């Protein structure tokens, strides 16, 4: 085979990871989001070391102290105290632990279930697929927050129940997304090649197709992460999430609602904490989407 053997080596292209980082870095907001997010994770991990006070310790002598820089403030309570005289900063720091716990748990529960159901739906015969998709339609007919509220009403208000309820409500999004990605991949030639090579169904599902569907799922996971934080906070705010005295940000807002016109800080800081966390994750999510979605890539 004289003239077929000699082929010059492939041009060296930048590796996939490098390319991903290039597109991610190009989105300045995403990089800022990544930094803020990393800082927040560190804070959550080391909350016990940084926090100046016990988050549940009440100081009856110092209720509703304003932040330190305001008149009447006290530098041992940098962000002031709440109506029960607890240090706001410490409560916020400990609250970040709960926030990340909630986000991670919801994403893990919803995505694990959603991916498996979506894979089955994409590969199953049409009638199974139809049943699954109708079931998802049914869940989607209930607004996530309402469904969570009602489920919590059944199961009883607690942080764990709130997470389970929200994970159930988010599951259909992962199912639909995975199914759509599976259907798009399934018709591609490399999947048919694997079938011709004799690959069985489990191999086709998990080894051939799933790794190629991961990109949109990651983006959806980032979105769900931030939405879960918002929804759990909303449940807490409505009194159906974490119960006092847990320093959960939404619950903190609910506890101090009646003081909004008297003590702005008790309302402002927990909300700001939620906003910054969610914003950082969403910024990162946008960066991920830009870097992972080839449709928006320009070459």
């Amino acid at each position, binding site marked *: 085979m004289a003239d077929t053997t000699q082929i010059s080596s492939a041009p060296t292209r930048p590796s996939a990871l490098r390319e991903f980082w290039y597109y991610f870095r190009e989105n300045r907001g995403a990089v800022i989001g990544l930094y803020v997010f990393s800082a927040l994770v560190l804070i959550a991990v080391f909350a016990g070391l940084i926090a100046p006070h016990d988050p549940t310790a009440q100081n009856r002598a110092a209720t509703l102290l304003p932040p330190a820089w305001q008149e009447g403030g006290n530098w041992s309570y940098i962000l002031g105290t709440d109506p029960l005289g607890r240090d706001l900063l410490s409560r916020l720091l400990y609250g970040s632990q709960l926030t990340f716990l909630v986000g991670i748990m919801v994403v893990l529960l919803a995505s694990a279930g959603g991916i498996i159901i979506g894979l089955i739906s994409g590969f199953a015969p049409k009638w199974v697929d139809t049943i699954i998709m109708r079931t998802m339609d049914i869940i989607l007919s209930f607004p996530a927050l*309402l469904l969570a509220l009602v489920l919590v009403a059944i199961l009883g208000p607690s942080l764990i129940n709130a997470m389970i309820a929200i994970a159930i409500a988010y599951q259909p999004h992962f199912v639909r997304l995975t199914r759509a990605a599976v259907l798009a991949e399934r018709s591609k030639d490399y999947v048919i090649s694997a079938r011709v090579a004799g690959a069985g169904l489990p191999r086709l599902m998990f080894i051939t197709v799933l790794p190629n569907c991961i990109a949109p799922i990651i983006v959806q996971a980032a979105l769900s992460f931030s939405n879960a934080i918002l929804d759990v*906070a909303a449940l807490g705010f409505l009194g159906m999430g974490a119960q006092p005295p847990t320093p959960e940000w939404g619950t903190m807002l609910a506890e101090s609602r009646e003081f909004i016109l008297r003590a702005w800080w008790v309302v402002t800081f927990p909300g700001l904490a939620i906003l910054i966390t*969610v*914003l950082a994750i969403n910024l990162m999510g946008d960066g991920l989407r830009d870097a992972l979605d080839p449709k928006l890539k320009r070459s």
Partner: protein
Amino acid sequence: MLNYVLARLLTFIPTFIGVTLVSFSFIRALPGDPILVMAGERGISEERYAELAAQYGYDRPILVQYWDYLTGVLHGDLGVSFVTKRPVWDEFFSLFPATLELSICAMVFAVALGLPAVVIAAVNRGKFFDRALMSTALVGYSMPIFWWALLLIIVFSGNLQWTPVSGRIGLQYYFPDPTGFMLIDSLASGQKGAFSSAVRHLILPTIVLGTIPLAVIARQTRSAMLEVLGEDYIRTARAKGLAPARINGIHALRNALIPVVTVIELSVGTLLAGAILTETIFSWPGIGKWMVDSIFRRDYPVVQGGLLLVAVLVMVVNLIVDMLYGLINPKIRKR
């Protein structure tokens, strides 16, 4: 198109049955005996228990009970509130206009502000306005709206005293409400200041409820526009020598609206979830507040009925949006 409409209607039926199943099993899923729950802490005699069980049909097979429930739902019978003793159906429809009015205002706010802003941003892609709009949209999208509501109350009701904190209209006004829409009824009443009071009560809830849809519409329309602007037919339009404004405003926007309609479909649920929070904060007498109050009061027939009606509402709106989708997408309309 007719086939599309009928096929879409057909999927409505199994989803509807599924939704009734979920709301039916809601009472079953409650921990404990529903009649004991109903009786509350006072306790109940055995004769009374049997009587109630027979009255509510809890002693019959579960399938029969479901069938009764389903036929009842179809006849508009959703049970009676434990608290007010009024039929759930009547309560729902007396409160529904308040939620509808607020939701329509929020949607109009979002679309009227969102679409033009996005078209301008797409023309000035990458420039200051585009970046500012997209950053704002992202902040709006990340906003915990219950907190946003509190901030607005602090500033506009607390510091500036411009807007009232709660309700739909000032207490001094009283007039009949034939439509249930406060804006219309206050105008029709002819009372001086009634309409402006209604408007002032509506402003903050509208902004709060409209924030997330506005952010979603802005973000989705823009990414749809960006995608459409890369299509071959946009190159054709440019090759025809059309002005950028015409390409963006007509050739691209028309195509970008097709995916955006489905975004609106998905945000109906978001809107209703937002209504729960908004109505609770502003004491807005609508479905959302009603549901939350009922959950707290353990008024289970209301929670059950409300859950079902909200789900059906979402389904109906989605059905309408899908029809709209079929109408604006020629590939479906002209098949």
